C-alpha cells in the first residue's frame, strides 16, 4: 500500500520579524551576506527563526521536518558561498526569477565545510524525534550556479562538486530523507555526455547516505534523455513539477518508468494562491490514474519549488495544505 508523505524542498522565507532584525544586524549590501562565521547576535536570531519554522512544520503536521535553510542568502549556491576555496563576487540572477545571489567563484581545491551538517544537528535537537529531512543542491545545479577558476575542465569541476557534496553529506547526523534540488537539469539541460556525468555525480552524492534520496528537478519537465540517465542513478525517488508542466512529466513516467517512490510537486511554491487540500489529493489520484498499473511505495507531496518566494503567512498556509492533502490521500487509499 502506498505511503503518502507530506514534505517540502526547504529554503523557507524568514519570519517577518527576522527579516527586520537580520536586516538591521547584517545590512543590505552584498558583503553583508552570510559567510559562515557570523557572530553571536546573528546566530541567535537565526536560531530563534529556525525554532519557529520547525514549529510551523510540526503544527502543520508535515511528515518530514527540514531546517528551513533560512541562512541560505545565496539560495542553492549557499554551500559554496561559505566554503574557503570560494570567492563570492557580483550579484547575479537566480534562474528566471526576480531574485539574485552572489556568484560563487571556485579558486582553490574544494573542501567540505560542515556548515549544513551543523544546521542539521541543531534541527535534530529541536525536531524532538520527528523524521528529519536534509536538503542540498544537486551537484549539477550547484556546478551550474558556480564559476570555476580552479579545475579548468567542466567534467572535473562537476566531479569536484560531487566530492564536495559527498563530504558534506558524510558529516550529516542521522536523517530519514535527503532532497537533492536540481532545477538546472531543466533550466540549463545537460547535453550529450554531460547528462550521463550529471547522473553519476548525483549517484555519488546519494550513495553517501543511507537515507532515502529524492532528486527534485523543477520549473518544467526533464528532457527525455536527461530523465533516462537520471534513472540510472541509485536514488529512491524523482520529483516532478506538475505545477509547471503536466504532459511532459507524465510522458516521461509512462515512457521510461519511475523509481518505486515518487515526489509530486503539486502546490505552487511561487504563487500566493493557496490550493485546496482536496484538490491536491484529487491531483495525486489523477496522476496515479494516468499511470495505470503503477503503484508507488511512497508518494511525497510537496511544493514544486522552494518557498522563499512567498510572503511568510502564505508559506505557512501552503505547508498546512500539504499535510492535510497527504492525510486525505491516505484515507482515500485505505
Amino acid at each position, binding site marked *: 500500500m502506498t505511503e503518502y508523505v507530506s514534505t517540502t524542498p526547504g529554503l523557507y*522565507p*524568514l519570519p*517577518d520579524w527576522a*527579516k527586520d532584525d*537580520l*536586516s538591521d544586524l*547584517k*545590512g*543590505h*549590501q*552584498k558583503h*553583508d*551576506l552570510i559567510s559562515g562565521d557570523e557572530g553571536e547576535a546573528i546566530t541567535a536570531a537565526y536560531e530563534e527563526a529556525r525554532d519557529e519554522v520547525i514549529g510551523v512544520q510540526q503544527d502543520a503536521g508535515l511528515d518530514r521536518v527540514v531546517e528551513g535553510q533560512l541562512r541560505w*542568502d545565496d539560495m542553492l549556491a549557499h554551500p559554496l558561498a561559505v566554503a574557503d576555496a570560494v570567492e563570492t563576487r557580483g*550579484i547575479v*540572477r*537566480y534562474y*528566471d526569477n*526576480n*531574485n*539574485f*545571489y552572489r556568484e560563487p567563484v571556485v579558486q582553490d581545491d574544494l573542501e567540505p565545510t560542515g556548515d549544513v551538517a551543523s544546521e542539521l544537528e541543531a534541527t535534530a535537537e529541536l525536531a524532538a524525534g520527528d523524521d528529519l529531512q536534509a536538503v542540498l543542491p544537486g551537484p549539477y545545479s550547484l556546478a551550474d550556479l558556480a564559476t570555476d577558476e580552479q579545475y579548468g575542465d567542466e567534467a572535473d569541476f562537476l566531479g569536484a562538486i560531487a566530492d564536495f557534496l559527498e563530504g558534506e553529506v558524510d558529516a550529516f547526523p542521522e536523517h530519514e530523507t535527503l532532497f537533492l534540488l536540481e532545477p538546472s537539469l531543466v533550466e540549463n539541460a545537460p547535453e550529450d555526455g554531460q547528462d550521463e556525468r550529471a547522473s553519476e555525480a548525483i549517484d555519488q552524492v546519494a550513495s553517501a547516505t543511507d537515507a532515502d534520496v529524492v532528486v527534485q528537478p523543477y520549473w518544467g519537465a526533464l528532457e527525455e534523455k536527461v530523465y533516462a540517465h537520471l534513472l540510472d542513478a541509485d536514488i529512491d525517488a524523482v520529483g516532478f513539477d506538475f505545477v509547471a508542466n503536466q504532459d511532459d512529466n507524465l510522458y516521461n513516467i509512462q515512457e521510461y518508468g519511475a523509481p518505486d517512490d515518487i515526489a509530486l510537486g503539486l502546490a505552487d511554491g*511561487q*504563487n*500566493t*494562491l493557496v490550493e485546496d487540500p482536496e484538490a491536491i489529493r484529487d491531483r495525486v489520484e489523477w496522476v496515479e490514474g494516468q499511470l495505470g498499473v503503477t503503484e508507488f511505495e511512497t508518494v511525497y507531496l510537496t511544493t514544486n519549488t522552494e518557498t*522563499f*518566494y*512567498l*510572503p*511568510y*503567512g*502564505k508559506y505557512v498556509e501552503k505547508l498546512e495544505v500539504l499535510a492535510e492533502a497527504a492525510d486525505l490521500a491516505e484515507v482515500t487509499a485505505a
Partner: protein
Amino acid sequence: MTNENKDQFRPPEHDSDHFLLTTVVGSYPKPKWLNRAKELYEDDDHGFDADDYQEAKDDASRLITNEHERAGLDVVVDGEMRRNEMVEFFAHRIDGYEFNGPVKVWGHNYFDKPSVVSEVEYDDSWLVDEYEFTADASDRPVKVPITGPYTLANWSFNEAYEDDDELTLELADLVNEEIEKLVDAGARYIQIDEPALATTPDDHAIVGEALERIVADLPEDVRIGLHVCYGDYSRIYPEILEFPVDEFDLELANGDYDQLDVFKDPEFTKDLALGVCDAHVAEVESVEQIEENIKKGLEVVPPEQLVVSPDCGVKLLPREVAYGKMANMVQAARNVEDDLDAGTIDIERGAPTPADD
C-alpha cells in the same frame, strides 16, 4: 531634418541650432526629512497626520522639481517623491490587488510583492494629481513615468488570471485609461517603464501587444517613451522597433557601451534616449566624460533623434551626487550641441564595416 514630436519640448530660449533634449528617467533621492515625515505619519503615537504628510510630499515634490530645473533639464519630473516602489505604488491604486507581506529579492532586500486576487479594475486616477502639481510647480515640460503593464503583471503573484499574458493585457487597458486622463490634464510626455522585459526578453511580443492597447486613441503629438534596463538588448532588438512608441530609453553607461553595436544594425528608427550617467556609481562623471558618452549615441542616431538622460532612476544615489550628475549632463549636452553647430563633430553612424569586407 526636424523632429516635431521631440521639438515641441525645445525651450524657446534654446540658443543652439541643435537640440539634444535633456531629461531624467524618473526617481530621485528623497530628502531625509521626507523619510522622517513618513515614519512620523506611520507612528500611531504621533500627532503627525495625513494632512501633514501630504504637505511634506508636496514640499518634496516642489523641491525636487525645482532642483531638476536648477540643473538645467529641458523636461523635468518630480523625482517620484510620492511613490514608494514602482509596482507597489500602482498596485495600491488598482482594484483587484492585495498585499500579503514582504518577499525576498536578494539578501535582506525585500519588497511587498502584491497578489492579483480578482479582476483588475480602474478606480481613481493614479497620477493626475502628481502631474498637475508638478506642472504647476514648473515652467518646463513635465514627463510622467508610469510602470508598464508587463512589469505590473510579472512582478506580482497572479492568482486570478489564466496566465500572465492575459493579466498584462488587462492591465494595459487600465494604463491606457490613466494615460488618457493624463493627456486630458495636459501631459505631453509619457514614459512607460518595463524593466521586467529585460529579464524575460522572449516576451517582447506580449509587451508590443500591450503597448498597442496603451497608445490606442492617444493624440499623435503625445510623446511615448519606453524605458528598459539591465538586460541583454540583443535579444529584443530589432523586434522592439515595431513597438508603437516614439522613444526608447536605454541603460548603456553602466556596461560602458558594450551593447551599443546591437542598435547599429538594422538602423535605429526611433528616438534614442541614451543613458549617459551610471545610476549605480556614486561618483559624478565629468562633463568631458559625459560628452564622450553622448557622442556614443551619435554613432546610432542623428542628433535630431537623440535624447540625453541617466541610465535609470537615480534614487539610490546620495542626493548631491544625483544633482552633480544632472548638472554635468546638461552642460555636456549643451557643449555637444555647440560642437554640432560648429561642425566640429565627425562621427560615422551605423553598422561598422567588417574589416575583411
